[in-house]
C-alpha cells in the first residue's frame, strides 16, 4: 500500500506539471461551463418540470470532467508512457505491475473529485446553482463508481491506440459525439428521442443520468441504481478487455 502511495505522489506531480493534462482535464471543463452558461444562461430546460439551464449544465460539465480525468486522461498518458518505453522500463523493476496501474487510477479519481468540487463551487458562486449537501454521499458514490468504470474503459482503450499521435484523435472521436448525443452539451429536451435511445447504448448517457439524479433533487432516489449498474457493467467489461489486451511494451519500434 505504501508503494501505491509512492507511485501516486509522483503521478500527481507529473499530472500537475504537464500543461496539456492541466488544460484539457481542469481548464477545459471550466471554460465549457462558462461558455454554456453565458450563451444559454437565461433559458430554462424542460426536465424535472423546468429548471434553469445553469442547473442543468453544472452536473453535465461535472460528468464531462469526470470522464476527462479518467478515461481520456488515462488513455492518453498510458499510451504516451507505453510508446516512450517507460511502462516497459518499470516492468524491469521489482515493483508489481498493479501498483503502477493503481497509482494512475488513484490519480484520476482524486482529480475527478477535485473537479467535482471546482465545478460545483463555480456553479454556486457564479450562477447560484445549489450544492445539494444532503446528497453528498450519493454524489460521491455515483462519481466514484463512474470514475472507476471510465478508468477501466480508458485502460482498455489503450490497446486500440497504436501510437502517441493516434491517441488524441481516437479518444476524441469516441467521446465528443457521445457528449453531444448524451445530453451533456445539448440539453435533453432539445434532443430527438431516437438520439437518446442511441446514446443509451453507451455508458456516458447512463453515467450522466445517474449523476444528474444525484445532483439535482427530484422525485426519484438520489442514487440511480439501474443507471449506475449499467456503468459498472461497462467498467467490468473494460477491466476484462484491459486484463486481456493491455500492453507494456511499445507498439512502434
Amino acid at each position: 500500500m505504501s508503494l501505491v502511495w509512492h507511485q501516486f505522489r509522483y503521478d500527481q506531480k507529473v499530472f500537475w506539471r504537464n500543461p496539456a493534462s492541466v488544460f484539457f482535464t481542469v481548464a477545459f471543463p471550466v471554460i465549457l461551463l462558462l461558455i454554456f452558461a453565458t450563451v444559454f444562461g437565461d433559458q430554462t430546460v424542460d426536465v424535472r418540470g423546468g429548471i434553469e439551464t445553469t442547473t442543468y449544465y453544472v452536473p453535465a460539465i461535472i460528468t464531462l470532467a469526470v470522464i476527462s480525468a479518467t478515461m481520456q486522461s488515462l488513455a492518453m498518458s498510458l499510451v504516451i508512457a507505453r510508446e516512450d518505453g517507460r511502462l516497459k522500463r518499470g516492468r524491469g523493476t521489482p515493483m508489481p505491475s498493479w501498483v503502477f496501474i493503481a497509482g494512475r487510477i488513484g490519480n484520476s479519481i482524486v482529480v475527478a473529485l477535485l473537479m467535482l468540487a471546482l465545478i460545483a463551487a463555480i456553479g454556486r458562486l457564479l450562477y447560484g446553482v445549489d450544492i445539494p449537501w444532503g446528497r453528498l454521499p450519493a454524489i460521491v458514490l455515483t462519481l466514484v463508481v463512474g470514475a472507476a468504470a471510465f478508468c477501466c474503459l480508458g485502460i482498455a482503450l489503450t490497446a486500440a491506440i497504436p501510437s502517441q499521435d493516434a491517441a488524441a484523435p481516437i479518444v476524441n472521436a469516441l467521446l465528443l459525439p457521445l457528449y453531444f448525443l448524451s445530453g451533456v452539451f445539448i440539453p435533453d429536451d432539445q434532443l430527438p428521442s431516437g438520439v437518446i435511445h442511441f446514446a443509451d447504448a453507451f455508458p456516458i448517457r447512463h453515467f450522466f443520468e445517474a449523476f444528474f439524479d444525484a445532483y439535482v433533487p427530484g422525485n426519484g432516489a438520489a442514487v440511480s441504481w439501474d443507471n449506475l449498474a449499467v456503468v459498472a457493467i461497462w467498467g467490468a467489461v473494460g477491466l476484462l478487455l484491459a486484463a486481456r489486451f493491455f500492453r507494456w511494451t511499445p507498439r512502434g519500434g
Partner: protein
Amino acid sequence: MSEPVISIRGLRKSYGEVEAVRGIDLEVRRGEVFAFLGPNGAGKTTTVEILEGYRKRSGGEVAVLGEDPERAGREWRARIGIVLQSCRLDPYLTVRESIALYAGYYSTPRPVEETIAHVGLESKADARVGSLSGGQRRRVDVGMALVGDPDLLFLDEPTTGFDPSARRQAWETIAGLRELGKTILLTTHYMDEAQRLADRVAVIAKGEIVASGTPESLGDRESRPARIAYREGGREVSLETTTPVRTLNELTAEALAEGRELEGLEVTRPSLEDVYLELTEQR
C-alpha cells in the same frame, strides 16, 4: 572461480521464419564488464532482452544470477538494473525525483544523492529531465538502473547517437560503475567503446558469436600479420609480415647501406576496427 553471473548455452530465438539468434554460448563472470559488440540487427538487443526477462527464448539454456529469467520473480528483479536501448524518461520530473521514484521500488536502495553524484549530475539534480541534453538524460537513466543497488547491470547501447564529449562522459560514468564491483553487460556497435570499457568482448553477427576474448586478443589480433608501409621514389610500398622485427631490420639495413631514407615509414597492426569489420562482413 565463482559461479557465472550469466550463463547461456545454445540460445536460439526465432520470429516466425527469421532466426534472430542462432545458438549463442556465453558466460559472464562476477565483477566483469562484458561487451556485446555487433552491427545493428545482429541480435544484440534480442539476446539482452531474453536475459532481462522481456522476451521468451525459442531454445537453449539461460541462467542469470542463477535463475531462468522467464520464471524469475521480484527478488531477482531487485538484483538487476536495466537501461533500455530507447526509453524517454518522464520530462516533468526532476533528476532527483526520477531517481527517487525508482529508489522507492526497491527494498534496499542506494542513497539517492550518492547515486546522482555517481552519474555526475549533482549540478542538475533539481533540473527537469525535459531540459537536459541527450547525454545527461542517459545518465539519469543509468542512475535509475543503479539506485536499486543491483548486482548486474544491463546497458543496451548506452551511447548511441551521442556526440564525442557526451560519449566520453558516459564512458567515465560506466567506468565508475566497475569500481562499485557491479557486473555489467553492455551492447554497442562502437568498437572503441568496447575497447575502452570492456574486460571481454563477444562479437555478434547475424545471430551468432563470431569471435570473443579480451579486446586485445580479439580475432587473434596479436598473431595477425603487421603491415609495413613507406614511400620509395614517390611510390607507395606496403608489405605484410608475421615477423615485423626481422623484416624491418632488413629494410632499414638496406636503406642505411644505400644512404637513403624510408619516407613515411609506418608499422601497424590490424586495428580492432579492421578485425571487427572483417568478422562481421564476411558473413
